[in-house]
């Protein structure tokens, strides 16, 4: 069983968010965990024979997927960069495709993940040093002399080269058309090693673009990947998880809150359903990201109140109950909570160029930069909860009277009403590329003004009972 099980047509057409879909995913994951158990034994055997053969390149492959100690000295970080460069150079620029089998089905993900993680933490570390002018002059000098180590261009270059070499874009396009990807794979792309590295490099790009603050390009990168359980990334839990986090986050930054909530919900439901047979260390690292996504959901729900999945709603109230209440109330009191949650849950943004070591104060932390821009949007919308809570009480209302209730000038209230009206229209993903979508009314509350008279209409949403009924029914079966 390989991580890249392409071509296997789905047995039944399923709705992306349906129960069936989830169950299939869960079953899939169970299988994967069991498979990994088997792998460990296999690896032990492997490492024995490997030691005998002193197979250098195989051990380099394994080493590339190993996490680097967080507190590793600068020298080790430089060495690690060099060994990645050598490894990728070997893979990409040898005479023809190299004849190697990846050590495991999740190896390619681990390598790309670790490569980007090290790039990310190196950039953050370099900026931190540049901001503290006092100590570590030695390390600062080394960093100043080597501006290209872990440079943004070389990281992007690796990812794009792996994508091109493997013809993965062409392969995915062929799969979308229900054609055989092997026909367009070429001599590199037909090998598992290249195909997997190429595939996960696409996810890697999503992440790098997001870290650099280019949210629309991040989503554009996934044009060729279909987000569903057939997707290759769904076979590797960490990849699955990471993809949804970055896609959801990018949507949030593009003010597409309904789509962001959909992404976060999907993966959080999946995690909650698989946690019972999660037992390895992988799960610990997921727990942190899991909490971050709940924080992001809280932010998105504050912008776009909606009904959440029961599991998520309960967990959200447990983890961030107090904060959510304040966010949903809006107004200036909510601002510190938005900041707190955003800072706790955002990716560790980086700057693509080396910092200015001679002017410590000129180096702004990219997190503060993105946060302050995001807060502009929060401030624009912070009166919407107030406006909505009043409008719900009436079918018609005089603007001046409402302004009197709210103790604001009529002109101010007109602005609030316009803002809220504009934000009820959101681009919502249908089934095209992630950037596309349809303009839909995402709120159950709508209104129109006739001079100073506000006409309000509320869409009555009947209770959705089928899903509830089916869930409980399947519970009694189990």
């Amino acid at each position, binding site marked *: 069983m390989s991580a890249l099980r392409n071509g296997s047509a789905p047995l039944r057409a399923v709705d992306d968010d349906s129960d069936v879909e989830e169950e299939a995913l869960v079953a899939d994951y169970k299988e994967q965990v069991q498979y990994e158990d088997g792998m460990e034994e296999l690896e032990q055997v492997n490492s024995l024979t490997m030691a005998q053969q002193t197979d250098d390149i195989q051990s380099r492959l394994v080493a590339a997927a190993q996490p680097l100690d967080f507190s590793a000295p600068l020298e080790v970080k430089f060495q690690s960069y060099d060994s990645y460069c050598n490894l990728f150079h070997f893979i990409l620029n040898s005479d023809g495709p190299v004849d190697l089998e990846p050590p495991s089905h999740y190896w390619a993900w681990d390598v790309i993940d670790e490569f980007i993680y090290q790039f990310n933490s190196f950039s953050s570390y370099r900026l931190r040093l540049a901001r503290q002018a006092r100590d570590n002059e030695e390390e600062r000098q080394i960093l100043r002399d080597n501006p290209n180590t872990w440079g*943004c261009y070389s990281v992007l270059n690796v990812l794009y080269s792996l994508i091109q070499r493997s013809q993965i874009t062409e392969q995915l396009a062929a799969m979308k058309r229900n054609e055989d990807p092997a026909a367009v794979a070429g001599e590199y792309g037909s090998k598992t090693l290249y195909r997997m590295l190429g595939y996960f490099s696409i996810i890697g790009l999503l992440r790098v673009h997001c870290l650099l*603050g280019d949210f629309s390009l991040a989503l554009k990168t996934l044009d060729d990947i279909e987000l569903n359980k057939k997707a290759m990334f769904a076979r590797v839990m960490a990849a699955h998880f990471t993809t949804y986090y970055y896609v959801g986050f990018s949507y949030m930054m593009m003010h597409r809150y309904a789509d962001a909530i959909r992404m976060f919900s999907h993966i959080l439901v999946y995690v909650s359903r698989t946690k019972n047979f999660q037992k390895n260390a992988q799960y610990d690292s997921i727990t942190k990201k899991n909490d971050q996504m709940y924080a992001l959901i809280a932010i998105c729900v504050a912008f776009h109140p909606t009904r959440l999945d029961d599991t998520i709603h309960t967990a959200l109230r447990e983890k961030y109950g107090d904060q959510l209440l304040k966010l949903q109330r809006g107004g200036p009191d909510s601002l510190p909570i938005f900041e707190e949650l955003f800072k706790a849950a955002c990716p560790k943004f980086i700057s693509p*160029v080396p910092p200015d070591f001679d002017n410590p104060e000129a180096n702004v932390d990219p997190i503060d930069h993105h946060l302050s821009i995001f807060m502009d949007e929060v401030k624009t919308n912070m009166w919407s909860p107030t406006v909505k809570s009043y409008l719900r009480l009436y079918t018609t209302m005089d603007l001046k009277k409402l302004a009197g209730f709210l103790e604001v000038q009529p002109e101010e209230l007109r602005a609030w009403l316009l*803002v809220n009206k504009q934000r009820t229209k959101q*681009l919502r993903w249908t089934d095209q590329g992630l950037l596309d979508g349809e303009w839909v009314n995402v709120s159950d509350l709508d209104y*129109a*003004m*006739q001079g*100073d008279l506000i006409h309000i209409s509320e869409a009555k949403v009947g209770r959705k009972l089928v899903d509830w009924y089916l869930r409980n029914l399947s519970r009694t*079966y189990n």
Partner: protein
Amino acid sequence: MDSEDPQERPDDISTIINGLERYNPEAVVGLEDYLRHQCENRYTDCNANRTLLKLYQLNPDRIKDEVITNILVKALTCFPSPQFTLALHLIPPSILAPNSRAELPEAIAKLRELNNQLQGAQYARFWATLDSDDLYADLTTDIEGFEDLIRLRIATLVSHAYREVDLSVLEQWLDLEGAAAQKFITETAGWKLDEGASVVKVPRNPENEAKKSEVREDVNVDMFSRVVRRAWEEIA
């Protein structure tokens, strides 16, 4: 709404945006020319302009201050879409810090204030701010028809929310008075003034109807197919 990819975009720009050329520092020349064309011809290609900002982000030595501000002013005309915000995210934070580059941080801060006012639908305040400092005139001078473009956006958004609007309110929002206001309302927007000429009537459209609706769940047999099959399988 604004489409991401305008039809005016020439092929060579598409090639840059969609391929690896987008990382070639030399591509800034073509993208800068294209921006100039957008400024002169009243259309905006935010996607192409972000590609340019991205190149600046990666190659800070290429940065041209007036190109950055022109991109931001162009993005302003796309409110309430997040184009301005997305552009701002790509501008290196170090050049936003005061004192680093004499005028750029101040210019960006000023444009950001304008954007917040437009996003916040404080149109009267927006025009007042625009009038308050000569710097704004400098910043918008390259953008052909900047004020007209903003007025059109405001008018569109008003038509989404209003069936009737007081002329006096609308005049403030559009920063137009008397004959100029009447001309804009009747000719550009195609709206009508009532007999007393104090209320503007906006034609009905799907947005300003605020229809009552009821969302009900559609239930069909297929939704239960699994349960039924399962029940059948357990017996079997």
